[in-house]
């Protein structure tokens, strides 16, 4: 809502406050002023000129040489506008003027002819093109004949004004009108209201003799007022009315249409004007449309109606979509002589549905949607009638044609001053409270410890005691509220065990060299199931904004890979990222998808880069595996952790494992498939994804100390020759199982496969540690245990002891 401060001052004394200061006061007490706009843009030297002569430039077809009386002199100005002509009063920017956008006007020569200034269009004065009356949209603006050459043009055009741009929250639809804003300002400044005048001489003829009215949809349209005005002269509106409309963001058309818009801005009550003769039937019937019924609206669009759209008809066919837009068939035009002014109450839900279905949002529909003041329906109709009499020479027929079943009773709210003070933590006196209610112009009475308040119908947001708490607080000033902390039973706060462990997981991964990434949950349908740990139906948006963001992800890996591509393309030589986030799988009983918290990580590029000491290493499978192993150790799961070769679409078939805890699959790890790498323009890239919720929630033994041995341990190394295919993990498992209780550690320390080995064989070396915390082991005991290991390895894995 754009509020002209000059216009506003017609309804309420603004104490001559500087608009900035006024805006600040309005913001602090309830309605945010988003911007304070100086319409003059600091312009000077912009005056009225009279075009005495106008002739074509001899050297240029499109230019005119004009002799312009600018008050103190007559001067020559070259003008390129197609509509300039002798005899016009025009806007002249004289040399020295600075126009909006920083254009400086200087004396100049155009094709050899001197030009002392510029004849201006409204656009050149900073008015948006869409607001300029159509007649002047493509050329200069022509002022009324009454303008005096030499006087400043700014006041004539209402440009010596400042606008307040209100950012209205949905509850304050009362401020969608100049009067509503005036009430608010009046409450802030303790001022009374001055209502606009609505007086005219009634004709001897009656409106009801011209028009009959019937409402067949009283729920959606509980009140309708029609006034009939005849003998109107369609012409341009006076300049003051046009510039107020432009200030409010409305384009002037002709006096009748402008008056309906003016009253809309003034009262917040949308009006519509019909050409009476074009209605043809002398009746208005308001009803729900028939499915498939058609109407051509004012914007020349044919629209197909549905049975929940409310329409105004002439008894036969629709002439307007109620509250949204008029029909072309009954539009006021230059030859109109009799008009019907509609002022009605259409319910918000009905208008919202209709305007949404037709994708038509207007100043009118916006107000109906939020609810207009039931007590202004008649006032607005009368105000329009008086303006039609005044500005269109109209003859207002006596009375109105009315159907009215609208409830106009104000809401009653009963609240105790104690309740208000308890809610605020304050001690505001009853006197201060009643004084605020008086300023707000709320009917109120204080009796038996309560305030009995009748909220005015313009304030439809006031319904319950808490609403009064807010009104009192905002007018009293939020700065006055003291600062306290809740008084309550003191309880410790904290993270849940899950949340605490999740934080430890993050800290560990970061300590291991990974940066935390956050990527989008929405992805393309194609990507949504890629790398998913389980197969489940996807969750798709009903109306996605793009195919790229249409489906909820089931794996974190694809977006992390996008991040690797992004970074690699920007010369990052190492990319190491992890993300903790939800994936969305299938559907639960409640209809929501299963949301699982997952952890994923990607690494690419160099892992170690300390080149001057010769330490340099590219990422590989075991770098990432080591991170996973460390994580599981942190969480107490390392004993149950196993990796098993597997095949996953999109990953390298020979370098992928499923990760298991006590045999249960909880994740996957692997190298991105070389063809995928190529597609994404990546080098070797490794990924891992874990079902983090499962990992964290898995039960773990209580941490209990094992005594540190006082006795020495004994270490024995073994080197084995086995088939190349034999997994070292399997060998390790055999050793662990066969080693007995004295075997406390197994460590793989060498692996060799190559020329020196027989084909299809490899050499693996383990170091085994034996000890007994209670005593020193004898050689014999160790030999016995060790022999069992060797035997088991030979029997179960065909391993030969290497010399």
């Amino acid at each position: 809502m754009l509020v002209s401060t000059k216009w506003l001052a017609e309804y309420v004394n603004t104490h001559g406050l500087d608009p900035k200061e006024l805006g600040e006061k309005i913001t602090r007490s309830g309605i945010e002023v988003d911007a304070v706009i100086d319409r003059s843009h600091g312009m000077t030297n912009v005056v009225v000129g009279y075009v005495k002569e106008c002739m074509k430039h001899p050297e240029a077809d499109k230019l005119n040489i004009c002799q312009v009386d600018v008050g103190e002199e007559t001067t020559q100005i070259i003008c390129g506008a197609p509509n300039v002509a002798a005899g016009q009063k025009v806007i002249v920017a004289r040399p020295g003027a600075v126009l909006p956008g920083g254009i400086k006007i200087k004396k100049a020569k155009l094709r050899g002819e001197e030009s002392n200034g510029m004849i201006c269009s409204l656009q050149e004065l900073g008015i948006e093109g869409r607001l300029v009356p159509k007649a002047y949209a493509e050329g200069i603006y022509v002022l009324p004949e009454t303008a005096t050459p030499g006087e400043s043009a700014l006041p004539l055009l209402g440009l010596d004004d400042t606008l307040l741009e209100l950012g209205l929250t949905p509850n304050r639809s009362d401020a969608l009108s100049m009067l509503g804003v005036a009430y608010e300002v009046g409450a802030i400044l303790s001022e009374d209201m001055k209502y606009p005048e609505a007086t005219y001489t009634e004709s001897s003829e009656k409106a009801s003799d011209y028009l009959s009215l019937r409402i067949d949809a009283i729920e959606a349209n509980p009140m309708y007022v029609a006034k009939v005005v005849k003998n109107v002269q369609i012409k341009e509106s006076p300049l003051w009315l046009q510039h107020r409309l432009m200030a409010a963001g409305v384009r002037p058309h002709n006096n009748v249409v402008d008056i309906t818009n003016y009253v809309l801005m003034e009262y917040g009550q949308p009006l519509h004007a019909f050409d009476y003769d074009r209605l043809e039937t002398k009746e208005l019937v308001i009803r729900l449309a028939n499915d498939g019924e058609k109407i051509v609206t004012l914007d020349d669009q044919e629209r197909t109606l549905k049975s929940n759209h409310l329409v105004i008809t002439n008894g036969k066919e629709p002439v307007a979509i109620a509250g949204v837009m008029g029909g072309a068939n009954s539009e006021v035009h230059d030859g109109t002589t009799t008009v019907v002014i509609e002022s009605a109450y259409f319910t918000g839900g009905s208008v919202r549905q209709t305007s949404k279905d037709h994708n038509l949002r207007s100043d009118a529909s916006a107000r109906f949607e939020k609810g207009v003041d039931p007590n202004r329906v008649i006032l607005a109709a009368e105000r329009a009638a008086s303006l039609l009499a005044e500005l269109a020479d109209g003859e207002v027929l006596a009375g109105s044609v009315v159907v009215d079943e609208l409830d106009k009773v104000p809401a009653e709210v009963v609240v105790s001053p104690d309740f208000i003070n308890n809610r605020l933590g304050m001690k505001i006196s009853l006197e201060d409270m009643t004084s605020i209610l008086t300023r707000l112009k709320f009917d109120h009475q204080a009796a038996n410890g309560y305030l009995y308040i009748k909220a005015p119908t313009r304030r439809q947001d006031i319904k319950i005691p808490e609403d009064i708490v807010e009104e009192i607080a905002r007018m009293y000033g939020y700065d006055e509220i003291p600062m306290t902390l809740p008084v309550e039973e003191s309880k410790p706060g904290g993270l849940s065990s899950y949340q605490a462990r999740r934080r430890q997981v993050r800290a560990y991964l970061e300590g291991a060299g990974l940066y935390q990434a956050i990527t989008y949950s929405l992805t393309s349908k194609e990507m949504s199931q890629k790398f998913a740990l389980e197969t489940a139906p996807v969750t798709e948006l009903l109306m996605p904004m793009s195919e790229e963001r249409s489906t909820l992800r089931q794996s974190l890996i694809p977006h992390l890979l996008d991040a690797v591509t992004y970074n690699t393309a920007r010369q990052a030589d190492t990319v190491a990222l992890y993300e903790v986030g939800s994936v969305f799988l299938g559907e639960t009983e409640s209809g929501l998808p299963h949301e699982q918290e997952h952890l994923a990580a990607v690494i690419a590029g160099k892992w170690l880069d300390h080149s001057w000491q010769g330490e340099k290493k590219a990422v590989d499978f075991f770098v990432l595996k080591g991170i996973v192993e460390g994580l599981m150790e942190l969480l107490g799961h390392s004993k149950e952790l196993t990796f098993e070769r597997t095949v996953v679409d999109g990953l390298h078939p020979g370098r992928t494992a499923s990760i298991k805890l006590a045999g249960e699959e909880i994740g996957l790890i692997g190298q991105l498939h070389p063809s995928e790498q190529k597609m994404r323009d990546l080098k070797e890239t490794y990924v891992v994804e874990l079902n983090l919720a499962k990992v964290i929630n898995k039960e773990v033994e209580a941490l209990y100390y094992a005594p540190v041995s006082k006795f020495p341990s004994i270490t024995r190394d073994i080197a084995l020759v086995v088939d190349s295919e034999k997994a070292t993990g399997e060998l390790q498992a055999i050793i662990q199982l066969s080693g007995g209780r004295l075997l406390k550690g197994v460590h793989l320390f060498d692996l060799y496969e190559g020329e020196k080995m027989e084909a299809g064989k490899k050499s693996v070396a383990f170091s085994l540690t034996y000890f007994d915390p209670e005593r020193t082991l004898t050689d014999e005991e160790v030999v016995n245990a060790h022999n069992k290991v060797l035997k088991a390895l030979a029997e179960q894995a065909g391993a030969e002891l290497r010399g």
Partner: protein
Amino acid sequence: MEAQLQQLKEEALQKIEASMNVKELNDVRVAYLGKKGPITDLLKGMGKLPAEERPKMGALVNVVREEVTEVLEARMTLLQDQAIQEQLEKESIDVTLPGRPVKTGNHHPLTRVVEEIEDLFISMGYEIAEGPEVEKDYYNFEALNLPKGHPARDMQDSFYISEDILLRTHTSPVQARTMEAKEGKPIKIICPGKVYRRDNDDATHSHQFTQIEGLVIGENIRMSDLKGTLSVFAKKMFGEDREIRLRPSFFPFTEPSVEMDISCFKCGGSGCNVCKKTGWIEILGAGMVHPNVLEMAGYDSKKLSGFAFGMGPERIAMLKYGVEDIRHFYTNDVRFLSQFHRTEV
């Protein structure tokens, strides 16, 4: 024999003098003072001397032996020192060479902000509540006093999955769920999480972003409690000398509703580009829980009251760290992420 002894002594002292390192000197020691050395031999040969000469000769040998030992030890100390000196010189390094890097990552800046806020409120007795990102229309809107057809639903155009299920548009449904679960008992929670709105991604909009909300419900919770709590928050997050101010606003789930500004932490209130010359920066929305919200969750709004507040970690991070484009938080550019490594005072 005496002359022999003197000659030995001279020889030994010369050889000690000529030794240039510890090893040579040790050889001298063995040669002259060792068990098979000439001095020991002399002592052994004393048996041939007349009995009365033996004590005198013995004493003489010992004197020589001590003298030689003393000189040798002195020389030894000198040579050892020299040896250490040489070794130290050989071992000296260019201390300006780069160290072996300890590569660590760090929190995403949004996590950093969220955890800072979480920790502050935990210290004031709050718990962290979380909930699903895909929500029922009921918890996202209806339970928060936003019935179907409510005009304020326009304020947050949403991604629907079906007529009744959508991506949550704020973390408030976690509040609604917590209230339902607590069955009328007091509540003190912080709810961080991802939220989604139908916005085209640009410098100031993101279809996915983060929110963190707080909710306190108890007996006689007052607006002054909200103001005091927010002031503690503002000072902790943005500096001890921050002031706050509340401005009236509107949210369907609170009444009264306010927005909180803090005095600009960059200019202190005199006006700069961060605060758009106003001296104040809008940080969050808050209010007293609407009685309809309490009642719908089974709370008696006559007996209990509450306050709620909500803010955007993106906005806070943008203000705090001067980030100009919200998309930086979601492109995961390592050059961006790695800047949030260091600790802050």
